[in-house]
């Protein structure tokens, strides 16, 4: 019998070897990319922690964390997460993948105990797909260690197998171990633990496990009343017959070889010859098996790759056109737009796709990659489909979106099963046309739900029942395409199905204040669960700081303290009414501490930085606290904010609110008050003062703050240079013949030649159907067609010329203003912007938000409410209104005297009044005690 230390050493050697070969295959999610690993890690973590109340003050521990697949999800709910693994190489990889996180502590362990972890210091421990590979003595040792490190209220979740496994040797670190329920219970009891729950666990290859008689379960374990016994006692309880002693386990080695060879076969089928070869070499080097002829497979790989440039003539030109014509007939009926694109494709463009013959039929090659199985495409297609559907995510989906058409073998195989609706997204028009020339695919074309050659998945069904299934060949050839389709899919799916609670936090004051309100309003219109937080009422106190403290350092400190106080209030508010996404408008009064805390709670933090990043630079300190930053500038701005640590940075210009910024029929009185042949609304920045001083001879009215009182402004500036409210300035826009929109600059005179972003006024004026002359901006061309939808000027002289020109041409002004309005209504509303913002958020954080939603109280409540369809609908509606999952939220829209009450409504009102009555009686009781 080997010592624990020796067994630990064997485990270390074995797992280091496997991680070094291919960590994805051995300890992660197979060949999937890292993003999928995080998603699936989060999914499994949600399973592991179901019903567990995670707190920020809690410490969590994973035994056998591998490359940290589940740790990222854990770090979002626990204050401190410790991951241990016997393989230092796995730990190194985990560090690389997880990046620097102060919450996650990674530790390469000795493989048999939890030394380094203090007694009674762990609130939650778990082990997933790990303990079953460990020698039983090490398993027993970890049980004793769990007893030691769990707090008195601590809980552990252990994924193990119930069943019988015979002939296992103690040095076997790979094959699954199972134990009888009785032995497990006894061992846990002897370790001073008790089982408080046991639920079945769904794992891939469920059928195979079932055949092997292994039943995967998740045990919930807590400290018991018994004192822990010795290691030998626990081990004997776990495996009364003990595990066989040996120096080498041949069966384990054979099993490892078998797994690796299957993997190599898949890599080979998927066209990843390098990794296939590397895997075969791994088998040859490390697995002492003679049962399989590796050399033969290696030679096959060499033969295929050596002949791939040989063009196989598989059909005459005539037959290719005939096959295409047959396919085109169906295509024309089902997907006419796509047919047009295919027909328009020149034959010369097809040269990038090479056709080769196999015994099953023709296959397509792009460059060094075969889009199908290079030798047996039909069997390869079948095999890929079977493998893919081993994942319950795909198996249970109603609709699969396959990325990559190839020559269509796998599509045929998937459709032939009749279990899923299938859509396909293909990156290459040429490859698709080639396929349609080679094979009669009419049956598949008739059955496909959609067929697209674009990353735009808007036309595809992206609901809860859909999943994206990428062909590995496409992922290798065109990773950007695959990533974009996946992102678009999740974005669309999120918009279709997700209802996170979104808070929009406005600034204390300034021009961004109304933008926050428009944002809230747009999200509400989009049917989101939104809560606008107006902080403007706190501005007066903030400004009073200036009248109390005059030293700038002290004043800044006081302001920070004030913002910290407001932040604490916000955190309390969010604790009371939890949120999933926080959208902070520029200058929103929230501190780094609060943002960190919200992120720790799993809230997605977003900043819409609707400011000039060069003028307002607080993003340098704050960007790193946001998962998403949206900017109104491109290029350097995005790079700089990204470099400052923001999660994702995207361009998102401001817009108009078409319910508020509208053409108005003003009264004569209003026209007199607000109107003018020429107007400008905005603050008196340097360049504007300089430019407008030379317009003094025009009939110009200037509205806005911070203008000088000297000549000529004393005559031009209206109402003592007060700030104009949005309700007022839309009247000015409507009552003015020519609105000047000169973007501000503190440095330049007149028009800033480096100006890029568009101010909100550009869109608001257009939405009011008001004619505007706007200074030229780098980003204007992608928002408006200059000269048709808007008129620009590039200098003050140019401005004067255009004022003169358009003053004389009211009809032309009207025509341009109308076109401008049409454009903004089509492309530049806040609803459009919010759709885009949410798309970006969902494309990156769908799984996180989904997991959060599923584990939210509403998720459980809606599931439970299925007993009564009307109750379920009412729960769903209350959820969508943004109510909390409490009775008041459910009855909030039941109004006495507004029509006949349904029985469900009556029952809810009954409960509402029962509770009210009981509270009243309790209150009476309390009153009694006081008297």
């Amino acid at each position, binding site marked *: 019998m080997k010592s624990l230390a020796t067994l630990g050493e064997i485990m270390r050697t074995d797992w280091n070897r496997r991680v070094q070969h291919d960590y994805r295959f051995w300890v992660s999610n197979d060949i999937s990319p890292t993003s999928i690993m995080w998603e699936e890690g989060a999914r499994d973590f949600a399973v592991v922690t179901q019903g567990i109340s995670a707190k920020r003050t809690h410490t969590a521990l994973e035994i056998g964390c591998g490359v940290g697949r589940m740790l990222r999800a854990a770090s979002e709910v626990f204050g401190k997460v410790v991951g241990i693994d016997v393989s230092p190489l796995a730990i190194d990889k985990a560090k690389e993948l997880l990046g620097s996180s102060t919450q996650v502590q990674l530790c390469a362990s000795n493989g048999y105990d939890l030394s380094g972890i203090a007694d009674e210091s762990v609130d939650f421990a778990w082990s997933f797909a790990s303990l079953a590979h460990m020698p039983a003595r090490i398993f027993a040792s970890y049980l004793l260690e769990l007893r030691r490190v769990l707090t008195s209220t601590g809980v552990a979740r252990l994924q193990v197998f119930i069943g019988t496994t015979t002939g296992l040797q103690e040095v076997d670190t790979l094959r699954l171990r199972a134990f009888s329920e009785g032995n497990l219970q006894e061992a846990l009891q002897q370790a001073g633990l008790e089982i408080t729950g046991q639920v079945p666990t769904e794992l891939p290859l469920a059928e195979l496990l079932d055949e092997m008689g292994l039943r995967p379960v998740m045990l919930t374990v807590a400290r018991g009343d018994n004192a822990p016994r010795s290691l030998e006692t626990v081990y004997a309880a776990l495996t009364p017959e003990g595990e066989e002693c040996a120096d080498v386990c041949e069966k384990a080695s054979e099993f490892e070889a078998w797994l690796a060879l299957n993997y190599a076969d898949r890599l080979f089928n998927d066209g990843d010859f390098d990794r296939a070869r590397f895997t075969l070499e791994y088998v040859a080097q490390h697995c002492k098996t003679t049962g399989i002829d590796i050399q033969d497979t290696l030679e096959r790989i060499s033969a295929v790759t050596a002949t791939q440039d040989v063009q196989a003539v598989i059909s005459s030109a005539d037959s290719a056109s005939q096959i295409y014509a047959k396919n085109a007939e169906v295509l024309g009926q089902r997907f006419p737009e796509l047919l047009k694109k295919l027909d328009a494709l020149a034959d010369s463009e097809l040269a990038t796709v090479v056709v080769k013959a196999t015994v099953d039929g023709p296959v397509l090659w792009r460059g060094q990659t075969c889009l199908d199985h290079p030798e047996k495409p039909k069997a390869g297609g079948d095999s890929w489909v079977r493998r893919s559907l081993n994942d319950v995510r795909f198996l249970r989906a109603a609709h699969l979106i396959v990325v990559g058409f190839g020559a269509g073998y796998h599509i045929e195989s998937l459709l032939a099963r009749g279990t899923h609706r299938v859509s396909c997204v293909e990156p290459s028009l040429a490859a698709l046309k080639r396929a349609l020339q080679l094979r009669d695919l009419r049956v598949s074309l008739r059955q496909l739900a959609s067929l697209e050659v674009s990353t735009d998945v808007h036309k595809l069904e992206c609901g809860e029942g859909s999943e994206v299934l990428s062909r590995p060949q496409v992922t290798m050839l065109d990773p950007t395409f695959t990533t974009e389709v996946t992102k678009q899919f999740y974005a669309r799916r999120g918009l279709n199905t997700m209802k996170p609670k979104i808070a929009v936090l406005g600034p204390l004051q300034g021009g961004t204040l109304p933008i926050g309100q428009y944002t809230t309003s747009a999200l509400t219109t989009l049917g989101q669960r939104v809560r606008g937080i107006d902080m403007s009422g706190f501005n007066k106190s903030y400004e009073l700081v200036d009248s109390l403290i005059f030293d700038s350092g002290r004043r800044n400190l006081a302001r920070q303290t004030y913002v910290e106080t407001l932040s604490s209030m916000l955190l309390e508010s969010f604790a009371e009414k939890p949120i999933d996404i926080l959208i902070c408008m520029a200058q929103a009064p929230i501190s780094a501490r609060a943002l960190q805390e919200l992120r720790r709670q799993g809230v997605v933090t977003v900043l819409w930085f609707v400011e000039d990043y060069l003028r307002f630079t607080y993003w340098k300190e704050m960007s790193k606290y946001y998962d998403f930053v949206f900017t109104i500038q491109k290029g350097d701005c995005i790079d700089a904010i990204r470099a400052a640590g923001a999660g994702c940075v995207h361009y998102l210009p401001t817009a108009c609110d078409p319910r508020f910024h509208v053409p108005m029929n003003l009264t004569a009185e209003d026209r007199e008050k607000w109107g003018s042949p020429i107007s400008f609304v905005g603050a008196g920045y340097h360049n504007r003062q300089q430019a407008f001083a030379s317009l003094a001879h025009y009939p110009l009215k200037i509205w806005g703050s911070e203008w000088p009182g000297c000549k000529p402004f004393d005559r031009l500036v209206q109402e003592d240079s007060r700030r104009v409210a949005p309700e007022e300035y839309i009247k000015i826009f409507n009552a003015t013949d020519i609105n000047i929109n000169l973007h501000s600059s503190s440095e330049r005179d007149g028009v800033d030649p480096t100006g890029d972003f568009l101010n909100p006024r550009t869109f608001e004026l257009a939405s009011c159907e008001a004619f505007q002359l706007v200074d030229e901006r780098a980003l204007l061309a992608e928002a408006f067609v200059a000269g048709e939808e808007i008129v620009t000027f590039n200098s003050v002289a140019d401005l004067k010329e255009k004022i003169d020109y358009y003053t004389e041409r009211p009809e032309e002004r009207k025509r341009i203003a109308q076109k401008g309005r049409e454009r903004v209504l089509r492309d530049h509303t806040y609803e459009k912007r919010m759709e885009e913002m949410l798309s970006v958020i969902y494309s990156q954080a769908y799984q996180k938000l989904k997991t959060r939603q599923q584990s939210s109280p509403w998720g459980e409540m809606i599931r439970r409410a299925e007993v009564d369809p009307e109750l379920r609908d009412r729960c769903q509606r209350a959820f969508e209104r943004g109510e909390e999952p409490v009775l008041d939220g459910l009855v909030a829209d039941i109004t006495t005297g507004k029509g006949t009450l349904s029985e469900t409504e009556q029952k809810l009102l009954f409960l509402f009044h029962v509770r009210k009555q009981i509270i009243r009686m309790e209150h*009476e009781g309390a009153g009694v005690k006081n008297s």
Partner: protein
Amino acid sequence: MKKRYPTKKKVLLVNITRLGDMLQATPTIAGIKQENPDCHITVLVEKQFEAICHVLPNIDAVIGIDLAYTCRSLAEEQSGIVDAYEYVSELVNRLKAEQFDYCLNMSSSAYTAILLKMLGVPQTGGWTADEEGYRVIESEWARLFATSVHHQNRQYNSLNLVDVFRCSADVEQHPQKLLVSVLPEARQYAENLIAEAAFTNTGPLIAVQAGASQGKRQWAPARFAEMIKILVGEYNARIVMTGSSKEQSIVGPIVEACASPNVFSAVGKTSIPQIAALLNLCDVLVTGDTGPMHISVAAGTPVVSMFLASAYGFETGPYSAGNIVLQPVIGCGPCNPNKACSRPDCHDMIPPRLMAYLAAERAKGDISEVSAELADPSKVIVYRSSFDDLGFCDLVPLNKPDGDLYSRHRRAYRKLWLDDLGGFQLSESESSGARRSALQVVDAGLEGLSELSDCATRGRGLMRDLQGLISDSRSPASKLTSINTEIVELDREIEELGYHYSPFGSLTRMFIFAKENLKGSDAAALASQMDGIYRDLGRRCEKFREFYQRS
């Protein structure tokens, strides 16, 4: 007696949350059985009161509603709400399956009204709700119940709520007392308990219930102790302290202060049947307005009871003849039950010595007079409970009070409702009295009544106009609008008169309840119903005037 539903077969009585309420329903239950011998009566009560229903006679079935579980589930929120919802669904289904033909709900709570609506019972008394969730009180007696307990009107009511409840269920014949069964095993237990006490005195066995449901109704333990010392020392009494284990903190100090072998605490030692048996063995119970007071009356033992703070003897006093009720005379009493009181001066109005005297005397036999020297009528009025010729409970003053400002109005209202709602033929002694001087144009105490009566007349005029407009299809809409505005203004005036002239709050409250119960949406039918409501108001004003002037 006017009856809405004289025949009943399958009856549901909803009386959920209070022990006293259940006992007070026993004359009604007995009456229903007496008048409908074949009917089946089910009672819906809060689960904790299920047990007591088994010692109440004439009940065929009891269904418990577990409000505590419901509230616990609701407090859990989220899925707990679904649990509570499922529980309610099961309850509603169970009750529907019983197919009741008559349901009486005398709880004014919104939830019982909604429950009744869900059950869809064809004939109802008391509170229910309409299709849109509005409260509906169909029976005029039940409206009187709601009117009488309205805080502003309480002092003007002299009808015991047991009688009002009974009339709501159309019950005329009744046993004139509350009912409870004294079970033989409970009696044996009570006898053992008394034996265990090993009293040294040999005088009357007097039970004392010191605890009360509200702190402000709780006479101070020191006063109880003083009273008990007098009873033990001067009247040779044997004292049994009653109460639940929760009341130990009140009773403990009393027993300690008395330090006498003749004071025995049975607190926490008795179930409901056992306390009924124990009280049955006693000669008298000294108490406040409590559940044990009703049990004692039901068990046949007279009570001497104090109606402190918000308690009001005429309303919830002991329902049998020969009990003694003490009502303090104080400007603020009876106070609002929903408000706490930091200075319960009404407690000072009742001297312990008076209580001891009354208890000892009542233990000897009925009391027909109490001297003003013993019981100062400016501080406390001592009443004796009795029944009038029509079988309605009443309180008769024993210490000759002359300063009761409300008694004349109470008399007038009593006659008004018995005549107007009950259709009772009042005897000569009830209906007539010495007429006041014909020269007295406005009798003191009737200020505002003429205005109210005028409003009723104006209302009927408006209804006539409205009915004319409705029947004439050429009527301009503006006239309808104008008349509608006048009606709204008039109704507001009526409501305000009720507040301004508080003696007539009961008349206007009945008017408001009647308006709340208008049925249908047809304009002509609504106008006709409204005309009837103004007619009722006018008639009641005139009857009240007549009864008041005769009293």
